[in-house]
Protein backbone atom coordinates (compact mmCIF):
# COMPACT_ATOMS: atom_id res chain seq x y z
CA UNK A 1 0.00 0.00 0.00
CA UNK A 2 1.51 3.29 -1.13
CA UNK A 3 -1.34 5.75 -0.85
CA UNK A 4 -3.60 3.80 1.51
CA UNK A 5 -3.14 3.37 5.22
CA UNK A 6 -5.11 1.97 8.13
CA UNK A 7 -3.39 4.19 10.68
CA UNK A 8 -3.63 7.89 11.52
CA UNK A 9 -2.28 10.07 8.75
CA UNK A 10 0.89 11.97 9.61
CA UNK A 11 0.67 15.39 7.99
CA UNK A 12 4.22 16.06 9.06
CA UNK A 13 5.50 13.06 7.11
CA UNK A 14 3.61 14.18 3.98
CA UNK A 15 4.98 17.72 4.29
CA UNK A 16 8.48 16.30 4.54
CA UNK A 17 7.87 14.26 1.37
CA UNK A 18 7.18 17.35 -0.76
CA UNK A 19 9.40 19.87 0.94
CA UNK A 20 11.99 21.38 -1.40
CA UNK A 21 13.98 24.62 -1.51
CA UNK A 22 12.43 25.44 -4.91
CA UNK A 23 8.87 25.32 -3.55
CA UNK A 24 7.75 28.47 -1.75
CA UNK A 25 4.05 27.64 -1.57
CA UNK A 26 2.41 24.57 -0.07
CA UNK A 27 -1.30 23.87 -0.06
CA UNK A 28 -2.76 21.12 2.10
CA UNK A 29 -6.22 19.59 2.06
CA UNK A 30 -7.43 17.58 5.01
CA UNK A 31 -10.74 15.76 4.89
CA UNK A 32 -12.02 14.87 8.35
CA UNK A 33 -14.92 12.77 9.54
CA UNK A 34 -17.70 15.24 10.24
CA UNK A 35 -20.48 15.15 12.78
CA UNK A 36 -22.32 18.37 12.05
CA UNK A 37 -25.96 19.44 11.72
CA UNK A 38 -26.23 17.56 8.39
CA UNK A 39 -25.25 14.34 10.14
CA UNK A 40 -27.05 12.41 12.84
CA UNK A 41 -24.75 11.59 15.74
CA UNK A 42 -21.99 10.13 13.63
CA UNK A 43 -19.40 8.60 15.92
CA UNK A 44 -17.18 7.27 13.15
CA UNK A 45 -17.13 6.40 9.46
CA UNK A 46 -15.99 3.07 8.15
CA UNK A 47 -14.06 3.51 4.92
CA UNK A 48 -13.71 0.61 2.52
CA UNK A 49 -12.13 0.49 -0.92
CA UNK A 50 -11.30 -1.44 -4.06
CA UNK A 51 -7.71 -1.22 -2.92
CA UNK A 52 -5.81 -2.32 -6.03
CA UNK A 53 -7.81 0.13 -8.16
CA UNK A 54 -7.45 2.93 -5.61
CA UNK A 55 -3.68 2.61 -5.72
CA UNK A 56 -3.79 2.75 -9.53
CA UNK A 57 -6.12 5.75 -9.72
CA UNK A 58 -4.23 7.70 -7.07
CA UNK A 59 -0.97 7.02 -8.89
CA UNK A 60 -2.52 8.34 -12.11
CA UNK A 61 -3.83 11.46 -10.36
CA UNK A 62 -0.39 12.18 -8.93
CA UNK A 63 1.16 11.69 -12.39
CA UNK A 64 -1.45 13.96 -14.01
CA UNK A 65 -0.74 16.70 -11.46
CA UNK A 66 3.01 16.33 -12.03
CA UNK A 67 2.50 16.78 -15.78
CA UNK A 68 0.12 19.69 -15.38
CA UNK A 69 2.12 21.63 -12.80
CA UNK A 70 5.78 20.92 -13.59
CA UNK A 71 8.03 21.80 -10.70
CA UNK A 72 5.24 20.98 -8.28
CA UNK A 73 5.26 18.08 -5.84
CA UNK A 74 2.27 16.14 -4.59
CA UNK A 75 1.91 13.66 -1.75
CA UNK A 76 -1.26 12.10 -0.39
CA UNK A 77 -2.64 9.45 1.89
CA UNK A 78 -6.16 7.99 2.16
CA UNK A 79 -7.03 6.19 5.36
CA UNK A 80 -9.28 3.11 5.44
CA UNK A 81 -11.10 1.33 8.25
CA UNK A 82 -13.10 2.86 11.09
CA UNK A 83 -12.14 6.53 11.48
CA UNK A 84 -13.52 8.36 14.53
CA UNK A 85 -15.26 11.73 14.06
CA UNK A 86 -12.76 14.56 13.89
CA UNK A 87 -9.91 12.48 12.49
CA UNK A 88 -8.60 12.80 8.94
CA UNK A 89 -9.61 10.33 6.24
CA UNK A 90 -7.50 12.01 3.59
CA UNK A 91 -4.55 14.37 3.41
CA UNK A 92 -3.17 15.92 0.23
CA UNK A 93 -0.07 18.11 0.19
CA UNK A 94 0.90 20.06 -2.91
CA UNK A 95 4.07 22.14 -2.98
CA UNK A 96 5.03 24.37 -5.88
CA UNK A 97 7.35 27.24 -6.70
CA UNK A 98 4.40 29.65 -6.45
CA UNK A 99 1.17 29.54 -4.51
CA UNK A 100 -1.33 29.50 -7.37
CA UNK A 101 0.10 26.22 -8.64
CA UNK A 102 0.02 24.72 -5.15
CA UNK A 103 -3.65 25.62 -4.66
CA UNK A 104 -4.60 24.38 -8.11
CA UNK A 105 -2.76 21.07 -7.86
CA UNK A 106 -4.20 20.36 -4.42
CA UNK A 107 -7.74 21.20 -5.54
CA UNK A 108 -7.31 19.12 -8.68
CA UNK A 109 -6.25 16.11 -6.63
CA UNK A 110 -9.18 16.18 -4.22
CA UNK A 111 -11.76 16.80 -6.98
CA UNK A 112 -10.42 13.90 -9.04
CA UNK A 113 -10.32 11.66 -5.97
CA UNK A 114 -13.96 12.43 -5.19
CA UNK A 115 -14.86 11.63 -8.79
CA UNK A 116 -12.70 8.63 -9.63
CA UNK A 117 -11.28 6.79 -6.64
CA UNK A 118 -13.36 3.78 -5.54
CA UNK A 119 -13.77 4.35 -1.83
CA UNK A 120 -17.00 4.02 0.12
CA UNK A 121 -18.11 5.13 3.51
CA UNK A 122 -20.59 3.88 6.02
CA UNK A 123 -21.63 6.16 8.85
CA UNK A 124 -21.61 4.57 12.27
CA UNK A 125 -24.11 6.36 14.50
CA UNK A 126 -24.41 6.55 18.24
CA UNK A 127 -27.70 4.58 18.16
CA UNK A 128 -25.85 1.65 16.60
CA UNK A 129 -27.24 2.09 13.10
CA UNK A 130 -25.01 2.03 10.02
CA UNK A 131 -25.76 3.98 6.86
CA UNK A 132 -23.95 4.01 3.51
CA UNK A 133 -23.14 7.55 2.38
CA UNK A 134 -24.09 8.58 -1.13
CA UNK A 135 -21.83 10.74 -3.31
CA UNK A 136 -23.62 13.99 -2.56
CA UNK A 137 -22.18 13.58 0.92
CA UNK A 138 -25.48 12.73 2.58
CA UNK A 139 -26.69 9.29 3.60
CA UNK A 140 -29.73 8.43 1.52
CA UNK A 141 -29.61 4.70 1.05
CA UNK A 142 -31.58 2.48 3.33
CA UNK A 143 -29.86 1.54 6.57
CA UNK A 144 -27.70 -1.44 5.77
CA UNK A 145 -28.90 -3.87 8.40
CA UNK A 146 -32.66 -3.19 8.43
Amino acid sequence: MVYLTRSSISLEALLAEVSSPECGGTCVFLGTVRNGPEEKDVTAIEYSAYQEMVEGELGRIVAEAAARWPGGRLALRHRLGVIPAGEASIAIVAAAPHRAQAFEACRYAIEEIKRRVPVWKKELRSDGSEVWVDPSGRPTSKPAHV
Partner: protein
Amino acid sequence: MPLQPAGTIRVRFFARYAELVGRAEAAVAVPLPATVGDVVRSVREQLPGAGDIPERPLAAVNLRHARLDASVQDGDEVALLPPIAGG
Protein backbone atom coordinates in the same frame (compact mmCIF):
# COMPACT_ATOMS: atom_id res chain seq x y z
CA MET B 1 -23.17 -24.60 -36.08
CA PRO B 2 -19.88 -23.84 -34.31
CA LEU B 3 -19.99 -23.65 -30.56
CA GLN B 4 -20.07 -20.01 -29.40
CA PRO B 5 -16.95 -19.27 -27.31
CA ALA B 6 -17.55 -18.43 -23.66
CA GLY B 7 -15.46 -16.38 -21.27
CA THR B 8 -15.14 -16.52 -17.54
CA ILE B 9 -15.19 -13.13 -15.87
CA ARG B 10 -14.12 -12.54 -12.30
CA VAL B 11 -16.73 -10.16 -10.93
CA ARG B 12 -16.01 -8.18 -7.76
CA PHE B 13 -18.52 -6.49 -5.47
CA PHE B 14 -17.91 -3.68 -3.04
CA ALA B 15 -19.59 -1.84 -0.19
CA ARG B 16 -23.40 -1.97 -0.50
CA TYR B 17 -23.31 -4.21 -3.56
CA ALA B 18 -21.22 -6.75 -1.65
CA GLU B 19 -23.83 -6.66 1.11
CA LEU B 20 -26.65 -7.17 -1.41
CA VAL B 21 -25.13 -10.30 -2.93
CA GLY B 22 -23.55 -11.48 0.31
CA ARG B 23 -20.16 -12.00 -1.30
CA ALA B 24 -17.11 -10.11 -2.49
CA GLU B 25 -16.65 -11.88 -5.81
CA ALA B 26 -18.03 -14.41 -8.25
CA ALA B 27 -16.93 -16.16 -11.45
CA VAL B 28 -19.46 -15.47 -14.19
CA ALA B 29 -19.56 -17.21 -17.57
CA VAL B 30 -20.61 -15.10 -20.55
CA PRO B 31 -20.81 -15.91 -24.28
CA LEU B 32 -18.18 -13.96 -26.20
CA PRO B 33 -17.94 -11.35 -27.55
CA ALA B 34 -19.38 -9.60 -24.49
CA THR B 35 -19.52 -6.16 -22.96
CA VAL B 36 -19.48 -4.96 -19.36
CA GLY B 37 -23.23 -4.52 -19.73
CA ASP B 38 -23.60 -8.20 -20.63
CA VAL B 39 -21.70 -9.13 -17.48
CA VAL B 40 -23.95 -6.90 -15.38
CA ARG B 41 -27.05 -8.56 -16.90
CA SER B 42 -25.68 -12.04 -16.18
CA VAL B 43 -24.85 -11.07 -12.62
CA ARG B 44 -28.28 -9.57 -11.98
CA GLU B 45 -30.02 -12.66 -13.39
CA GLN B 46 -27.84 -15.35 -11.89
CA LEU B 47 -26.76 -14.19 -8.43
CA PRO B 48 -29.23 -14.16 -5.53
CA GLY B 49 -29.63 -10.60 -4.24
CA ALA B 50 -27.97 -9.05 -7.30
CA GLY B 51 -31.32 -7.91 -8.70
CA ASP B 52 -31.04 -4.88 -6.41
CA ILE B 53 -27.82 -3.75 -8.09
CA PRO B 54 -28.77 -1.01 -10.57
CA GLU B 55 -29.04 -1.95 -14.24
CA ARG B 56 -26.39 0.61 -15.08
CA PRO B 57 -23.89 0.64 -12.23
CA LEU B 58 -20.48 2.26 -12.24
CA ALA B 59 -17.99 -0.38 -13.39
CA ALA B 60 -14.32 -1.05 -13.83
CA VAL B 61 -12.43 -3.55 -16.00
CA ASN B 62 -8.98 -4.65 -14.84
CA LEU B 63 -8.69 -1.77 -12.34
CA ARG B 64 -9.77 0.98 -14.77
CA HIS B 65 -13.11 2.72 -15.03
CA ALA B 66 -15.04 1.33 -17.99
CA ARG B 67 -18.27 2.15 -19.79
CA LEU B 68 -20.99 -0.46 -20.02
CA ASP B 69 -20.36 -0.83 -23.76
CA ALA B 70 -16.68 -1.66 -23.24
CA SER B 71 -15.79 -5.19 -24.30
CA VAL B 72 -14.54 -7.84 -21.90
CA GLN B 73 -12.26 -10.81 -22.53
CA ASP B 74 -11.94 -14.20 -20.92
CA GLY B 75 -10.13 -13.77 -17.59
CA ASP B 76 -10.97 -10.07 -17.13
CA GLU B 77 -11.82 -8.70 -13.73
CA VAL B 78 -15.01 -6.63 -13.74
CA ALA B 79 -15.87 -4.65 -10.64
CA LEU B 80 -19.30 -3.22 -9.89
CA LEU B 81 -18.88 0.01 -7.97
CA PRO B 82 -21.52 1.71 -5.82
CA PRO B 83 -21.54 5.52 -6.03
CA ILE B 84 -18.06 6.68 -5.03
CA ALA B 85 -17.87 8.45 -1.69
CA GLY B 86 -14.20 8.69 -0.83
CA GLY B 87 -11.97 11.48 0.30
